[in-house]
Structures are given as structure tokens and as C-alpha cells.
């Protein structure tokens, strides 16, 4: 892997709760980026959104972070960062990326996450997202132009497509995205695997089994704290998503 660019993948989202599917995205993205021959993936960061995000049925960040930590406890390269979840207001994706990139540069002086040997070259940070994220760029006025330039141009996207979504088409149809298309890596997921957190919550409040859709320790944690119920699903009902109230931008890189 000598001469490769060290790369960290960042995923932002609700993680309400984290599922096997979220973790698969990281595995798929790493395989893909290694196959390009240009990158060495040295870390992955799961960044759960803060409570002020205001999404319906959003469990407290404290729990969402704890569950993500349990789920990734056996991963030797993906970890959970609670910085975004602790911010008093909703944080724009660009801001979160800037924060993590400065952390990475700082860390680069010392050691790499989880003890990996530091590779040569300046590390990069890319946003890991689902295909639905790209489609948001097609909606006029949702994204600030300079934010697009920074997220896609300066950092870059690794986008895993699921189901019938066509990420390449979304790139083609957006001028901003196609301008930076060399910095957008599209990963095709061949296994049709749509474990959405919405479906998981639905099954949970109906008393149905969710075993094998998310790790056992997370299931135990949910049961212990009685997390996803009819009542909790009504949380933030009818509320306007914080980012929509703020600037009208679609925030989630991993829509479930």
C-alpha cells in the first residue's frame, strides 16, 4: 500500500439506531477505495447528529452514540465520534467535515486512529453517503454553492448506491456535481440489503424481532433502556427539521 493516499471516511446521520446496513456501507466503501489503487483507508468515523436536528422519533444522542459504540466495538477501523452530537445547534455537513479534517491533521503529527502505522502523504477526508444524498443536489436552491464546492471539491464523496437509485444519473444531472465528478466515487452494492432504521424502529415498537438486523449488544441496549416505543416515535412529530428551518438544506448523508 506504499505511495497511496491515506483516507478517512466520515458518515453523518441519525443512526437511530445504527444497523448492519450502516456498517456495510463502510466495508463496501473501503473495498472500493482500495480497488482504485490510489487510497489506503486508515479510518472511518460515525458521527451521529445532535438532538436539535428535530427528526421525528429521534432518540437522545446519548443513546444513539452509545449504541453506535457498542455496534463498532469489534471494528478495528471504524469508530464513533460524538462531537457533532454534542453541538448546541444542528451542524452543517461542511462544518462537521472541517472539524474532523483538522482533527485528522493534528493526529497525523502523532499517531493514527487505533494504532495503524502512518502512511506517507497528506491524509484526505471523504464523506461517505448513500445514493439518496446525491439526489438532494438536484433540488434547486437546497445547497449553497460554496458548500457544494467545499464538500465535493475539496473533500470528496464516496457514495454507495442501494436498490434502484441511480447515483451516476444524479451526478450527471447536477452541474455542481459533474464539475467535481473526479472526486465522487460511486460504489455499487450488489447485495440488495435495505435494512432501514425506520423499518427497524417500526418492528421494535410492534414487538417484532430485529435480531440479525443489528448487532446483539445494540438490541440488548435498546431493550434495557426501552428505547423505541409508540411514544418515542411521536417525538418531534410535526416539527420542522432544524436544517430546513435554518437554511433549507437537506442534511442527512445517510438517510436511514
Amino acid at each position, binding site marked *: 500500500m506504499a505511495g497511496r493516499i491515506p483516507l478517512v471516511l466520515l458518515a453523518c446521520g441519525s443512526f437511530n439506531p445504527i444497523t*448492519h*446496513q450502516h*456498517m*456495510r456501507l463502510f*466495508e*463496501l466503501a*473501503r*473495498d472500493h477505495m482500495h480497488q482504485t489503487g490510489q487510497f489506503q483507508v486508515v479510518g472511518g468515523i460515525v458521527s451521529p447528529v445532535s438532538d436539535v436536528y428535530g427528526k421525528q422519533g429521534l432518540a437522545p444522542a446519548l443513546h444513539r452514540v452509545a449504541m453506535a459504540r457498542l455496534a463498532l466495538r*469489534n471494528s478495528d477501523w471504524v469508530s464513533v465520534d460524538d462531537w457533532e452530537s454534542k453541538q448546541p445547534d444542528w451542524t452543517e455537513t461542511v462544518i462537521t467535515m472541517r472539524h474532523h479534517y483538522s482533527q485528522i491533521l493534528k493526529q497525523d503529527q502523532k499517531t493514527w486512529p487505533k494504532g495503524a502505522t502512518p502512511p506517507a502523504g497528506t491524509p484526505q477526508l471523504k464523506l461517505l453517503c448513500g445514493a439518496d444524498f446525491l439526489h438532494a443536489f438536484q433540488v434547486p436552491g437546497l445547497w449553497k454553492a460554496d458548500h457544494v464546492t467545499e464538500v465535493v471539491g475539496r473533500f470528496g464523496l464516496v457514495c454507495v448506491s442501494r*436498490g434502484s437509485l441511480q447515483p451516476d444519473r444524479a451526478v450527471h444531472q447536477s452541474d455542481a456535481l459533474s464539475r467535481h465528478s473526479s472526486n465522487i466515487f460511486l460504489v455499487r452494492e*450488489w*447485495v*440488495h*440489503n*435495505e*435494512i*432501514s432504521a425506520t*423499518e*427497524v424502529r417500526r*418492528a*421494535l415498537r410492534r*414487538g*417484532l*424481532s*430485529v*435480531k*440479525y*438486523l443489528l448487532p*446483539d449488544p445494540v*438490541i*440488548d441496549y435498546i*431493550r434495557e433502556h426501552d428505547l423505541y416505543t409508540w411514544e418515542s416515535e411521536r417525538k418531534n412529530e410535526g416539527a420542522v427539521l432544524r436544517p430546513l428551518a435554518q437554511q433549507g438544506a437537506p442534511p442527512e448523508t445517510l438517510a436511514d
Partner: protein
Amino acid sequence: MENSYQTKVVLLACGSFNPITNMHLRMFELARDYLEDTGKYRVVKGIISPVGDGYKKKGLIEASHRIEMARLATESSDWVIVDPWEGQQAEWVETAKVVRHHYEELLAAEGSNDEVDTVKAGKKRRHEDREGCTHFHCVRTAGPAAGTGHRCRQRGDSDRKWRDVPQLKFLCGADVLESFGVPNLWKSEDITEIVGHYGMVCITRAGNDAWKVVHQSDKLWRHRKNIHLVKEWVSNDISATHLRRALRRGQSVRYLLPDPVVHYIQEHSLYSAESEEKNADVILAPLQKYSKGCS
């Protein structure tokens, strides 16, 4: 009312399990939720029965490995177990015979002591650190010794009587239902026995028209009341074929099957381009058998 009795059910899944995936394990969870939700059944056990090497399917690795992987995968379950009997037979065993074998085992167990509880207690002993019940909003009864296993809030049960011998039902995916129509793959009387006498629970994907298969087959239609079709809303299409492909290409399969199975595969370097060539030009055992014998 028929609801004054709940029938005990044991679910049996036959297949290659080459290797076992989270999707195979989900089938059991979905089937149990579905059957218990009818109010008529209580699912007391799930059995995974990997096929023997005599099946001669392409890329089928040794039964000993497949059995061990299934065992590792079910370690965290308090109701699903692996039975090595079929996998250990030298010759391929017809599925109807496997079903019969397991029913006889159930009858024998009923004669002596409660086999289900023994299995459960054995698992509990191995996993004392884990909570047994995988069901949500479940009222945990008297602790690990509670022999009847988990009981759920929505099903008041203290005054119910259980029938003594459990029913054995054949658990499968929609592909098996469809395979009933493939010439020379199944003996006609075997289908009648499995579906008519025992009954089947078939997991179908949203959008898959399994009822159409039943409708278009007179034999299946006759036994439609013994066929339970369970819709899987979360599409979770992890095929073992895809997994093997990813494995021999060195791609990650993590989170598609339980971690202990991933480690086992790595440790024994199980799925390679070479292993995929196994039985490459061999005719599948049932096809060999039935295309010769009957016509």
C-alpha cells in the same frame, strides 16, 4: 374456540447453508413472529439442517465446515439449533425423509422428557452472560430455569393448555416454493407429504407473488391452508452465492453473516476459486436420482 389451545411448532429449515448468512437466520425470526401473531401457535424450536456432501451442488464445501459455521451462527440464539444428522449422511437424503426423521425425533423426545427444554438449558449454560430472549417487550419469566421459554405480554398464557407433541413445519424461502415446479427436482409424493402432512412456512419478499405459485399448482392449492406465506418487509437479499463470490475476490463480507462465522471462514480459508469448482460437472443428486427412476 380454537384459540383455547396453542399448538407448539418446531420449524425445520433444510438447505446448503454454504455458508449460513444473516438472511437464513432472519427467516426463523420472521416465521416465529408471524406464527405467534396468529395466536394459534407457539414456536418452541428452530432446526437448521445443512445438506450432506452427497447433494453434489457446485461449490458445496464439506458438511463438517458448514455444520460448524451454522453452529457458530446460532450460538447467540436461544431457540434455533443446528442438527448435523442430514449433513452426516453419506448419501443425499430426500427432504421428505429429513422431515420424517425430525418428526420421529420429536415424538421420541415427547415420550421421554422435554427435548426443547433440554436444548434451551444447554444453550443457556453456554451463554449465561447473554439474555436469552430475543423478543422485544417480553416479560422475562422466572429466570433461566423458566422451561417454557419466553412469554410475551400480548399473549396471556397462564391458563392456556399446550398440545403435547409439537407440529413440525418446513421453513423455506420463496425459491424453494418455486423449485417445486422444476422437473425431476422433487418427487411428487414428497411435496404432498411435506406440504400436506407437515405444512410449510415460506418467507417471501415484498413484491414476490408467492400466492401465484400456489394458485398455479393444483397440488399446492389443495394444501393452501397448510402453507403460511410470510412477507419480509425489509428486503435483505443476502445470497450465499454472492457471499462466496465476495469471499473469493477478497472483499469484505462483514455484517452479512455473524462475526464468528467470518472468523471461521478466514481461519480455514474456506471459499476460494478452487472450492467453487467442486462438483462443477456433477449432476445434482436429486436430478440424478429422479431423472433415472421415474419418467
